[in-house]
């Protein structure tokens, strides 16, 4: 597999199975994510991609299998600041929440601070840098709920970046976002991946965009039926014939 010509394995999922009650959602999933990769995990509704993400993030526990984060078993993993997460904003966010853009981005620094720690100068600097990276610094004092969907998305990415992660996970980031905003958004992700050498993992149903953007692609329909480089994806007739399982 062409995966091997990339950096070290930072995330290894081996032989994961997961069910909600009697419904099997994931079966025998094995997947490695390499440092510097830009991976699209693609699947239709109910294919299990969000469950897989939640397992990797420790929000769900699989009934079978093992997850290693940076070489450590997920149950013992403590260094969560290495992992950035951009949730699906539409479902997770109250537009009336009283917070400015700057306050939201500072939250990205909270996980790495112990209790009683006040916000430091370093926190403020990192928050500023993150907002500049997504070109949202001038909006710092605006209410998060007053921004457009695309702008909120950038702020959430800045929040993830503020924690200085090594890998960033995004859950369906382009749902409900207009096409031109979507293009800008993918350009931003490419910049983060290439310039900051950030590992990017994107969960999406949008295989067309992924085919242009990601370096690797994993197609999932309860189990992974294709995982390789984009080039290989186009050569593999089976995968191309069934892009939406």
């Amino acid at each position, binding site marked *: 597999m062409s995966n091997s010509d990339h950096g070290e394995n930072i995330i290894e999922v081996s032989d994961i199975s997961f069910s909600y009650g009697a419904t099997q959602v994931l079966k025998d999933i094995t997947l490695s994510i390499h440092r510097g990769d830009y991976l699209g995990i693609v699947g239709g509704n109910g294919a299990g991609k969000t469950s897989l993400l939640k397992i990797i993030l420790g*929000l769900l526990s699989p009934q079978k299998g093992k997850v290693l984060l940076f070489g450590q078993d997920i149950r013992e993993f403590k260094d*969560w600041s290495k992992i950035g997460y951009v*949730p699906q904003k539409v479902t997770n966010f*109250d537009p009336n*929440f009283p917070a400015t853009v700057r306050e939201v981005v500072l*939250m990205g620094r909270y*996980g790495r601070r112990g209790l009683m720690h006040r916000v430091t100068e370093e926190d403020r600097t990192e928050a500023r840098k993150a907002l500049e990276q997504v070109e949202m610094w001038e909006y710092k004092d605006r209410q998060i709920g007053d921004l457009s969907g695309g702008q909120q998305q950038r702020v959430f990415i800045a929040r993830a970046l503020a924690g200085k992660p090594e890998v960033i996970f995004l859950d369906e980031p382009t749902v409900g976002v207009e096409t031109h905003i979507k293009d800008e958004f993918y350009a931003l992700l490419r910049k983060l991946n290439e310039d900051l050498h950030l590992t990017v993992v994107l969960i999406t149903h949008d295989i067309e965009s992924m085919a242009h953007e990601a370096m690797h692609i994993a197609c999932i329909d309860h189990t992974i039926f294709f995982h390789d480089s984009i080039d290989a994806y186009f050569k593999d007739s089976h995968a191309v014939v069934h892009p939406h399982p």
Partner: protein
Amino acid sequence: MFDILHYSFFVRGIEAGVIVAFIAPLIGIFLVLRRYSLIADTLSHVSLAGVALGFLFGVNPMWSAIGVTVVSSLGIEKLRTSKRVYGESALALFLSGALALATVLLSLGKGFNANLLNYLFGSIVTVTQTDVYTIAVLAVVVACVLFALYKELVYISFDEESARVSGIAVDRINRVLIVLAALTVALSIPVVGILLIAALIVIPVVAALQLRKSFLQTLVYAEVISVFSVVTGIFASFYLNLATGGTIVLIMLIVFLLIMAGKDRP
């Protein structure tokens, strides 16, 4: 006009009132933003069972209310997170269960008397010096813990899932929050009474939220509204001979309506 301050009972009432007015929005902002407003209501009814227990066994009702409310708060959180019943059903179970227990305990101890009304509707004239000390010490504890967990609570309130991914011990902090809510409820009994505690915790925050400010500013505005309403409410109730708790809550509601009206103006 402040010759009333020569009366020690009045001073104690003001002291207790200001302390409670200060901590109620601190806890309230997190409860309101997490859609937990009804927990304040439930815990206040639970505290009545605590008061009834105090009557029955001749213990200071504030102490028995604190004990019962804190223990029940942990029960509510456990039932809620077990997902065996819906979140609001857990609240309904505890609210009505506690009220039923309270009425039975009160009838056992012949507690249906004028003294009970002081607890139901608040009566700052009955606040003893010991009560003021208890309220002060526990309020300091609540404020310190909230200060220590402030960042984490803000993050959890905004986005619980991301907070969890960032390594914050969400479940543990949720339990701490509900215990602090229980303490705040029990401490508020003498000032506004069991039946109006939820208003004290919820209304100043809801009013401040209308201003659409940053998190910190919202908190400061809620504090100002809360302390202003409690102090003016206590004075007004004395001079106009009105029920203190009700006067305080009505002032809060007027502030809320004024903010709403101000917002609607172009």
